[in-house]
């Protein structure tokens, strides 16, 4: 899959948790559909490797940001569904504002004011 991707962005350390939380804001979901959703919404720029995804899911579960339960998938198979907890919602808000501040800062540095007009 990796070599098929036309262009691809490495995930920054710690951002996967934020993406997972944001994805779950739409409703409970299992690992595969979370990965697919992130990939699709980022226009295939972000590839979520299963090797990072599942440890991350278990990590946020252990932290109490998401809760997991076994339910039937859309195709009638047993799947582990993750859902956002109130704690996770709060975490998402704070992580998001941090991230926005960070990306704004990055943008300010990378695009100085005098070049903005171009």
């Amino acid at each position, binding site marked *: 899959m990796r070599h098929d991707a036309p262009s691809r962005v490495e995930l920054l350390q710690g951002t996967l948790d934020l993406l997972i939380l944001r994805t779950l804001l739409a409703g409970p979901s*299992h*690992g595969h559909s979370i990965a697919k959703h992130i990939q699709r919404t980022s226009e295939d720029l972000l590839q979520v490797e*299963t090797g990072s995804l*599942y*440890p991350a899911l*278990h*990590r946020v*579960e252990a932290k109490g940001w998401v809760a997991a339960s076994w339910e039937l998938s859309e195709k009638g*198979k047993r*799947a582990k569904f993750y859902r956002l907890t109130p704690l996770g919602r709060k975490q998402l808000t704070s992580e998001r504002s941090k991230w926005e501040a960070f990306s704004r800062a990055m943008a300010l540095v990378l695009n100085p004011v005098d070049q903005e007009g171009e």
Partner: protein
Amino acid sequence: MLHFLHWRSLLRRSRFEGEMADEFAFHVQARMEDLIRSGLSPQEAERRAQLEFGGRERFRAECRESHRVNWLDELWRNVWYALRNLRRTPAFSLAAIVSLALGIGMNTFVFSVFDSLILRPLPITDPAGITFIETTTGTTHSFPDYKEFRDRNTTFSGMAGYRISVMSFEHGGDPSRMWCYLATGNYFDVLGVKPAVGRFFHQADDLRPGASPYVVLSYANWQARFAGNPKVVRSSVHINGLSYTVLGVAPRGFHGTEMLYWPEVWVPMMMEPQVEAGNPWLDERSTWNTMMLGRLKPGVTAAQATADLNRIAADLARQYPDNDKGLRVRLAEPGFLGSSLRGMVEAFTGGVLLLAGLVLLTACSNLAGLMLARITDRKRELAIRFSVGAGRARILCQLLTESLVLALLGGAAGCALAVAACRLFSRWHAPTDFPVQVAVSPDWRVLTFAAVATLATGLLFGLGPALRSSRTDLNGLLKGTPGVALLKTKYRFALRDLLLAGQVAFCFVLVFGCTLSLQGLQRAITLPIGFQSRDVTIAAVDLGSAQYSEARGRRFQKRVADSLQALPGVTSVAYANSLPLSIDQSTTSAERTDEPEKQGRRRQHANWYDISPGLLETMQIPLLRGRDFSEHDNEHAPTVAIVNQTFARKILRTTNPIGKTFRYGPQSPAIQVIGLVADGKYVSLTEDPDPVVFRSILQDYNPTTTFVVRSRTSADAMVRQIRKQIAVLDAKLPVYGTGSLENMLGFAMFPMQAAAIALSAFGVLALLLTVTGIYGLVAYSVARRTRELGIRIAVGARSFEVLRLVLGKLLLLVSAGLVMGVLLAFAAGPALSAIIYTTTPRDPVLLIGVLIAILAVALLSCAKPVARALRVDPVSALRSE
């Protein structure tokens, strides 16, 4: 328990692994379906999905880690880590373990004693139903009264009477003096005890006086004298020369209902006239020798039973006003002669337990300080662990594990110590032939206590420092300025300072108390006790138990004394019924003959001894006026007496009593005083002088005889000589209470010795703890302020100012503690002087001495960290941090 945890963890783990596998399988499946939908063949899709999914083992481990399912492994890791850390600082670890072992061990031991004496129920059926019945003024009843209570009550299912007594027991070899219980026939049935071998006596075996020559052996007696042979049943033994049949053996551990008394045999009460030959009292309403216990009927309350018994008591008081006027009874817990001894035992063991608890608390506060100081050294390491993402809980866990591991090691060592102490203590016998014993054996209560004490200790000294250090300012630490970081923490050491001051105060009280008691002991050994115990050997016989007539007894006493007098090296020989400071003391009322008879409490009492001529000389009791008894002061001569100064002053109200007369009671003849001796100690070393009258044993025959020999021969050799001389006259007569007079005084000294030993142990421990506590505080404060000290030295602070910085607060705390200690010692003075023999519980010289000693110890114990503070090199101090 460990197995159980492990098993649960395995179960949880396998479920977790299974779920993880399912989750991964679902993912691969879903991906495969997507790929098939995009046009791949099922085989190709599966291959691709598997490949994409990648090496699952690796991230499976990561998932596991994030859940920490393997918490048991984690615990082991923590323990391992803790052990490694502790090994890195052996001095600290050893000090901590030793102080914990001593603290926990001491507490466990004291609790074992408390448990064995107070908490543990008697080894009988339904011990809660058994109650002791005493009168409002004393412990015992007359036997006729016992029978009335037993037969007329409606609230008890059974009521037994018993009496502590002594006899001469013979089986095979030589007769020996043996302590026993005389017990009514229903005794064992009321208590609900089952024999180990044979049978017990019952009500039907105890009907007529003298008709039940049966004996039940104690388990220890059976083992010691009969080698545990079950054939002992129905064999015969001799008691006071009469033949008795052995019925059975009491179960192991059962020694009647008195906690401290361990008799060797039980004999039916109806044998009283034979056992206590010459003193029959079964029909005497005026002799109150019977102790009484009963089993309440189910559902009967203590109040109902008391009311029931007092109804009978009121009848008795009406019927027999001479003996039973004002008779009232009450119920008490069995174990310590009713309530007469229980309160004392409870207060004493409880008090010691409290002291031990305080010592342990001190140890905790100390260790908390040391841990805190230790953690300071590891601040950087902890900060790094924080920054790589170890959670606060995890670090807290790790630090707590460390203190719990320490506590467990100390607790285990402490338990071993406590068990050893219990063994030693159980083997202890009072230095008298009276079988006083405290059987202390740890049981589940003691184990629980030790476990709780250990865990509580670990948490107590571990939690504070752990919480504090897991709440530090990360950035400050990583920037390498721990001084700043620590200043930012809110900790002001208030509690710890208070603890240190309290510890110093407590240490002062203990050390002061222990030096007081040692000084008291020292003084007591050289105290004027009214006689000289050196070079005196004693040996006793009981001619009453041996069925001697008065005439034969008199002859025997005289002949033994004469034969001993003839031995080489013997300076003088005498005999008496009892000696001052021995366990056997008697009192009588006494009053001047020229005064009207006094009633009740206003009557004056005096201790009395029946002595032979020459006893004053042999014991070297100073004769101040008049003369000693002579051979002529016998039953044919007028009754005379020798009194002590207090008797003269209090009862005769004169300093020269020679020629004055007194009487024991309205019926007694007038007795003339012929001699005056100096006051001494008679019952205990702590008493105020008591009035004492010495009577001539030639006039008042007494079958209980203690021979007193002053000689240059060693006590052991002398005892052999005395035994030989007595055996020449009567080989069957048991000789007891032998040894040097100094040895016998051990009994009088015992409470003080025990208190001195206990207090010394506490004192030494408290001192040790104070040393480590002060060291910990100063070492910590120096470590904390190295940077500050460096700066100060760099800008020109002198050694004196550095000293003031480091020691100022400490001196303040120690002084505050000492002031508190002095106040405490003053407040506890009366309690202290009750156990410690001392004339001045506020001895100023000793007080100042102990103050200076503790100050010196305090200063010495902080010498090392202070030296370190003085040596702080400003350059390296500023650079390194």
